[in-house]
């Protein structure tokens, strides 16, 4: 339709990441060859990132319904009922590839994108969390990446003004060429103010609001779906630049405009920009849309329709406004010094029609771009390498000669050590809701005007998923829920971010399918719906996939904010109890990695019913007001959990603990297994506590007492660790920092 545009051929389609079959399908749908702009639209909307073509069949297995779910998957974010007319909006997204290419801007725009997903639903973002994975901490490249990613997140979060209240930082060599940057955001909305990304109302005007369009990130969506190769650095010019200041104005202007009732539907221009919005919004509403690109505010001259449609310039939104309310909406954006331009209208014929300077450059049924996108059910195969890994018995390795040294080494391992260096660069208090700051199992935020609070966490262990994707997936859910239980909360909902290698490889797709099966089973048994999420495939460099890493973001509710509980010991003389089973394993443990440099073995079996009972027991004791501290036993086993409980709080306090022998002392101290929580309770609450545990049917035992200025561990009657608090605190506080500063 335009002379200037290149002729579309199969080769060009291939260069756009489309297969020959997919290209045929496009021709069949259109009944003709696509124009260049149309090819761009198909390549973006049919990319893995937008169409979920390899994951859709598996994602259907996730439980997404529950009475309190107001919005499940399918919108920009999920929504759950908080009671009292309030709702919580949540979503997590990855920005892995952009962050590898340009860590600062990549991570920053990752934050920007997820914030827009939340406020596009009408909610005010109240917290973010960031879940990060990097390669070898000693590699200078890793230091460069961490520095860039953390300062990018810090810049965007802090400038925008949302507290970052938690997250993770984990290291493993498998992430060396492909770090993970996942950001979760939650927002608060009144239930009568929820907005959806639908282009309703034929004849309604379509408004473009926010920043101008430049040539940023064109092909970002297809890039995120392409395997990294040597020379990927040359793709660099496609990196987007963030402007958190403009985003903050966009937030205020959008919420103000939404409050007038003049806004019908709204979606952020994220991946695949205007292309994605102008197809998805009418598709959800069963309408069509007409867009005149001549009116789109541009930052650069000579932009083609293709570029304007596919640009991923940040801080932009598409609004459908009620006819007659245009002036009202325009005024609000002007007040916030933002552009708001009418660029099109909603139509009734199900087509997306794009014009520029009077020429028609694309005309495609919106369904063709969205619902008709290809869906694959590709083969999966259990990788052969697992047999040898499973057969490995960690107990064939020599027992450490010095347990004190081993404990200090694990505490100082950068995946275990304090992450204060990271979170002190993030504002975690703006909004004055954060009751439990970063540094405990879960962050807790109050809901102003109510007695309630919410708890937030992200969890995922790629080592577990690598060794046993089914259990690993389930364990991620179990651990997230356990973290919430430790803080006193009842889980409400999951948002996930599933980071895997190439789904075109059967072994990777098997990992993916199994992990989802595990997540689904755990969510079903623990009764936690999945309300939103994201899939990030193709996380590999030169055929080397990352550890399969599903990250579970979870939000929970405390009916009484006063129940909130932190992980550190508080009072001399408090009794320490371990709730949960004895069974643990060194397979896939942090100990095996740090001390023996191996990733192998079998995981301890997760019993989901037991998990549920342990969590209920812990929460029950918290709600009864018996618990001074509760800490999930995770990486590093019970020895690390106890040591952290001694030194992670505002004041340090010692403990004396005696554990029954579970065989070798390394297994007892550092063995990892699900469903275990260390709590401390005042001695006078002991009776009451015992009764409650009985009631919930959770296994438990007293293992020691809080107090003094040493940390002492006995196993089977003999002292294996006796360290001063200074030694422990030093190892744990400096372990991460020594690599980054």
């Amino acid at each position, binding site marked *: 339709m335009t002379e200037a545009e290149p002729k579309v051929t199969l080769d060009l389609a291939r260069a756009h990441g489309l297969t020959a079959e997919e290209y045929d399908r496009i021709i069949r749908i259109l009944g003709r060859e696509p124009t260049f702009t149309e090819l761009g639209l198909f390549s973006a909307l049919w990319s893995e990132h937008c169409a979920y073509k390899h994951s859709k069949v598996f994602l259907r297995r996730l439980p997404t319904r529950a009475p309190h779910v107001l919005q499940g998957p399918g919108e920009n974010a999920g929504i759950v009922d908080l009671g009292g007319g309030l709702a919580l909006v949540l979503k997590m997204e990855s920005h892995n590839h952009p962050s590898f290419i340009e860590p600062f801007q990549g991570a920053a725009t990752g934050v920007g994108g997820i914030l827009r997903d939340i406020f596009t639903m009408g909610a005010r973002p109240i917290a973010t969390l960031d879940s990060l994975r990097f390669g070898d901490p000693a590699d200078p490249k890793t230091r460069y990446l961490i520095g860039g990613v953390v*300062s990018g997140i810090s810049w965007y979060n802090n*400038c925008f003004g949302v507290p970052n209240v938690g997250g993770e930082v984990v290291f493993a060599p498998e992430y060396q060429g492909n770090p993970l940057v996942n950001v979760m955001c939650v927002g608060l909305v009144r239930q009568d103010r929820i907005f959806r990304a639908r282009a309703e109302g034929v004849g309604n005007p379509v408004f473009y609001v926010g920043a101008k369009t430049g040539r940023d990130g064109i092909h970002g969506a297809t890039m995120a779906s392409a395997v990294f190769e040597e020379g990927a650095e040359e793709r660099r010019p496609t990196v987007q630049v963030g402007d958190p*200041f403009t985003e903050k104005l966009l937030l205020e202007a959008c919420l103000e405009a939404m409050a007038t009732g003049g806004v019908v539907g709204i979606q952020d221009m994220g991946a695949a920009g205007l292309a994605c919005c102008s197809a998805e919004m009418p598709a959800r509403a069963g309408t069509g849309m007409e867009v005149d690109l001549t009116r789109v505010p541009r930052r650069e001259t000579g932009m083609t329709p293709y570029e304007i449609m596919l640009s991923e310039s940040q801080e932009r939104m598409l609004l459908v406004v009620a006819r007659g309310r245009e002036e009202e909406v325009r005024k609000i954006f002007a007040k916030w010094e933002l552009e708001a331009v009418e660029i099109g209208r909603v139509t009734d014929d199900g087509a997306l029609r794009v014009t520029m300077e009077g020429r028609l450059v694309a005309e495609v049924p919106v369904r063709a771009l969205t619902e008709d996108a290809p869906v694959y059910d590709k083969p999966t195969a259990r990788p052969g390498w697992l047999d040898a890994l499973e057969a490995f018995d960690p107990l064939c390795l020599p027992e450490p000669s010095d347990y004190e040294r081993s404990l200090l080494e694990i505490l100082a391992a950068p995946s275990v050590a304090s992450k204060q260096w990271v*979170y002190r*660069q*993030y504002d975690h*208090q*703006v909004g*004055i809701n954060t009751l439990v700051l970063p540094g405990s199992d879960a962050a807790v935020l109050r809901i*102003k005007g109510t007695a309630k609070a919410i708890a937030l966490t992200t969890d995922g262990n790629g080592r577990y998923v690598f060794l046993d994707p089914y259990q690993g997936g389930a364990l991620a859910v179990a651990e997230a829920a356990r973290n919430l239980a430790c803080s006193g909360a009842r889980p409400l909902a999951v948002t996930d971010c599933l980071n895997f290698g190439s789904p075109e490889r059967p072994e990777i797709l098997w990992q993916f399918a199994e992990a989802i099966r595990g997540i689904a089973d755990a969510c079903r048994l623990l009764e936690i719906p999945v309300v939103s999420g994201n899939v990030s495939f193709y996380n590999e460099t030169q055929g080397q996939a990352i550890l399969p890493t599903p990250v579970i973001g979870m939000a929970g509710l405390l009916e009484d904010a006063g129940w909130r509980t932190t992980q550190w010991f508080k009072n001399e003389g408090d009794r320490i109890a371990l709730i949960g089973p004895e069974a643990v394993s060194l397979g896939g443990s942090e100990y095996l990695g740090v001390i023996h440099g191996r990733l192998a073995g079998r995981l301890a079996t997760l019993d989901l019913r037991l998990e549920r009972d342990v969590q209920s027991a812990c929460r029950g004791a918290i709600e009864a007001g018996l618990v001074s501290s509760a800490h999930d036993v995770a990486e590093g086993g019970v020895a690390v959990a106890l040591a952290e409980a001694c030194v992670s709080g505002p004041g340090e306090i010692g403990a004396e603990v005696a554990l029954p022998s579970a065989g070798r002392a390394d297994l007892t101290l550092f063995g990892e297994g699900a469903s275990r929580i260390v709590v401390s309770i005042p001695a006078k609450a002991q009776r009451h506590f015992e009764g409650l545990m009985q009631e919930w049917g959770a296994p438990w035992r007293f293992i020691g007492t809080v107090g003094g200025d040493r940390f002492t561990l006995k196993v089977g009657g003999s002292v294996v660790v006796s360290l001063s608090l200074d030694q422990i605190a030093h190892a744990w506080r400096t372990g991460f920092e020594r690599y980054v500063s």
Partner: protein
Amino acid sequence: MRFGVVIFPGTWSDCDFHYVIGEVLRQPVKYVWHRDTDLSELDCVILPGGFSYGDYLRAGAIAGRSPVVEALPEFVARGGFVLGSCNGFQILCEAKLLPGALLRNECLQYRCQSTFLLVENAETPFTRGLRPGQVLKMPISHGEGKYYADPESLRALTARNQIVFRYCTEAGEVTKAANPNGSLENVAGIVNEGGTVLGLMPHPERAAEAALGSTDGLLLLHSLIGVLVEDGSFLKR
């Protein structure tokens, strides 16, 4: 006392101050848009934290030339109080309502953490409910909070007792380790010559409820509105 909380494009502690003044202290409070210049209904103007204009160029620079800030000298001249916290302090310095400037943190990183403040001057309207030497706990959250003034200005500030708060340890020692951003002589907050304009980097509004870890920030506002604090150690205005 009637409070006005100013909103610049990019301000984010506005709601927090509004909440603390309105809901915790139960005082009359309203928002003031950055283009408003009529402050006649107000007794105290709050310049809250945030990244006004993205803090582009220099923190507080662009906001320091905004209409509402240009109206402040007259407001102060007729007896009004101004409290600038975090970005508000930066704006006050940029607008020359307070001497000196705030530079990038010496560690070159943003810092969000709890700090302790030594009260040096308990004679100002913002601190008369406090004792000299008292230690307050208040969080900071900034990337450009290193106070700087040339030696002469610093001497003048000291001579006139305009340095109100210094970063210190929990025990009240003013040490290098207790200084989170490299501020000159640990300066955390200063007042103008008249004592009616206070600028400080810490966030009093984040230390206004026990549930959030400290109520020391309230003491500043209590002092201002003349409520008896502590053990009645100062007289109502």
